[in-house]
């Protein structure tokens, strides 16, 4: 099996073979949802951080009795899977107060009979001030202690250093992949990249790195994607749906980079490996490319988007957001204005998460957008 095939399989199966193997060794698996959670701490405690998504929820009828129509379909899909027992294999879940929706999804989950044995929320400030950094560090310490207390383990400083290095390795490899994608005739389709990313959050990073390395080797021998396509950047709300990108690419585009939360935003910045690992980790997570939840950071997000657009030579940008997601919805409105000003054609798309998306209607808009770029 090629590395890509293995990764695709991981991405497609909730309880995939790597997780099963991990569990069969008697080790714990803990879910998370946000890029502000320092996964390395779990990893160093020999706990597998597993990203919770709403992939595969066919409807949201269980979740809808708690969350409502005005809550985003991502948080509803996640809760649906939790309530229907699909996350029973997790030993715990650690959320972040990322946004109003996911915070309330967490509230509902931990108050429900399907609550996992360990339910923890790590509060992250919404400002990047020195005081906020202190607060965040204290919270990460509390989080570490909570993990140690509940699972009866300790986060050994040496193991933390190793975890940091493993995670950095992963980020560097992903960046190499993205560099290839940024060139002419990239080796992978954008939808395949999404699959890789999604697999990377559902398996141990060490093994993921091995597969990534193999993938990069294979990339050299792969048939290249012809370059006559319109090169696009995708940014916005959480996107786990390779099909969405496939749809876009089916219309003659190629998604060559992104600014998605579990895309470049999550791996662009490395952790400093020289000093104290814990402090470095806290700094890295606090200061990484800011999410729209971070107030006053719009200019930085804008700059990051422009940087990605320039690096990957894109012809246009798709800014998607899940309906009712105000964080990304508002940001996208501003980003659209500023990207267009900078001469980058931009399409704003409001959509539903995963299977609930209305593909036909989206297709028309995407096709028209591509026609607009190619005119």
């Amino acid at each position, binding site marked *: 099996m090629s590395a890509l095939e293995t990764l695709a399989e991981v991405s497609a199966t909730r309880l995939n073979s790597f997780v099963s193997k991990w569990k069969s060794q008697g080790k714990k698996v803990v879910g998370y949802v946000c890029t502000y959670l320092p996964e390395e701490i779990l990893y160093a405690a020999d706990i597998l951080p597993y990203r919770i998504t709403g992939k595969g929820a066919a409807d949201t009828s269980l979740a809808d009795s708690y969350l409502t129509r005005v809550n985003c379909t991502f948080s509803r899909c996640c809760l649906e899977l939790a309530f229907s027992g699909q996350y029973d294999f997790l030993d715990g879940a650690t959320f972040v107060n990322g946004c109003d929706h996911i915070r309330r999804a967490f509230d509902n989950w931990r108050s429900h009979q399907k609550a996992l044995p360990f339910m923890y929320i790590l509060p992250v400030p919404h400002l990047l001030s020195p005081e906020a950094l202190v607060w965040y560090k204290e919270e990460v310490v509390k989080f570490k202690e909570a993990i140690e207390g509940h699972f009866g383990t300790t986060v050994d400083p040496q193991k933390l250093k190793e975890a940091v290095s493993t995670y950095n390795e992963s980020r560097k490899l992903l960046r190499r992949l993205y560099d290839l994608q940024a060139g002419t005739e990239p080796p992978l389709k954008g939808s395949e990249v999404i699959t890789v990313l999604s697999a990377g959050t559902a398996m141990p990073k060490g093994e993921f790195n091995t597969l990534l390395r193999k993938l990069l080797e294979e990339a050299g021998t792969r048939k290249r994607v012809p370059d006559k396509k319109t090169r696009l950047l995708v940014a916005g709300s959480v996107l786990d749906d390779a099909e969405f990108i496939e749809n876009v690419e089916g219309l003659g585009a190629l998604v060559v980079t992104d600014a998605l939360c579990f895309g470049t935003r999550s791996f662009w910045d490395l952790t400093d490996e020289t000093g104290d690992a814990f402090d470095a980790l806290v700094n890295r997570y606090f200061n990484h490319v800011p999410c729209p939840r971070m107030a006053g950071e719009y200019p930085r997000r804008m700059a990051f988007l422009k940087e990605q657009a320039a690096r990957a030579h894109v012809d246009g940008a798709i800014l998607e957001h899940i309906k009712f997601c105000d964080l990304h919805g508002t940001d996208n409105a501003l980003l659209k204005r500023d990207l267009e000003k900078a001469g980058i054609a931009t399409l704003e798309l409001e959509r539903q998460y995963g299977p609930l998306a209305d593909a036909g209607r989206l297709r*028309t808009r995407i096709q028209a957008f591509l026609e607009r770029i190619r005119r």
Partner: protein
Amino acid sequence: MIVAGCDVGSLTAEAVIMTNGSILGSEIIRVRPTAEQSAKDVMDKVLAKLHLSYDNIDYCVSTGYGRETIPFADSNVSEISCHGRGAQWLIPTIRTVIDVGGQDCKAIRVDERGLLEDFVMNDKCAAGTGRSLELMAEVLGVDITRLGPLSLEATSPVVITNQCSIFAEMEIMHYLCEERSIADVAAGINEAMARRVKMLVGKVGVKEDIGVTGGVSKNIGVVQYLEKMLGKKFVQFSEDPQIVGALGAAIFAAEKARESKP
């Protein structure tokens, strides 16, 4: 060189045949069970009228929601591009096209060549579509074609506040039992529709001249409200605005034919 544009929408299908930059003929039909069938029927009809056959067509572009399933089309172009192109071809000064059809509503900005500059299309829900007007006309007990003229007779239009087209029916009933006149209710319906369209148009920014296409452009009530809200007059098409999509497709067809057979 003879080219064709074929637009299969959710309610109607149109075909336009062109040669050397002028329209030879066009047809509009109600949609058939499948997009394929609609396309074939409308095409047969226009070809018969012009005494032509499929062999005479050098290139055909399809558009509309059924655009991807039409066997005789050489390629397809989105209805957004086609509406912009067709409208601008008819009236070269047009920069904004508002297209309100059965299932969607779009605001399109084009450049001086009729090519897309930007656009928005409604997504979320059916409120503010032609189909929702039909449902409301039904509750009123009038034919959809009467909704516009009736609304011109209104003396004090009602205010329809409900966002949902299905629930708006309830509000309409409410007014009917209060014995408000049909004309006042019709005007309220058109006003609510215009308000929704206006919101969308604002998103792309209006540049004059402005033209309105799609079935709802035949509703004089909606059109007048919209003109008032935007504070602008719309330009009038010489052709039936419903064929604008198909016309745009035919123009693209002519271009593509030139590209492929130099």
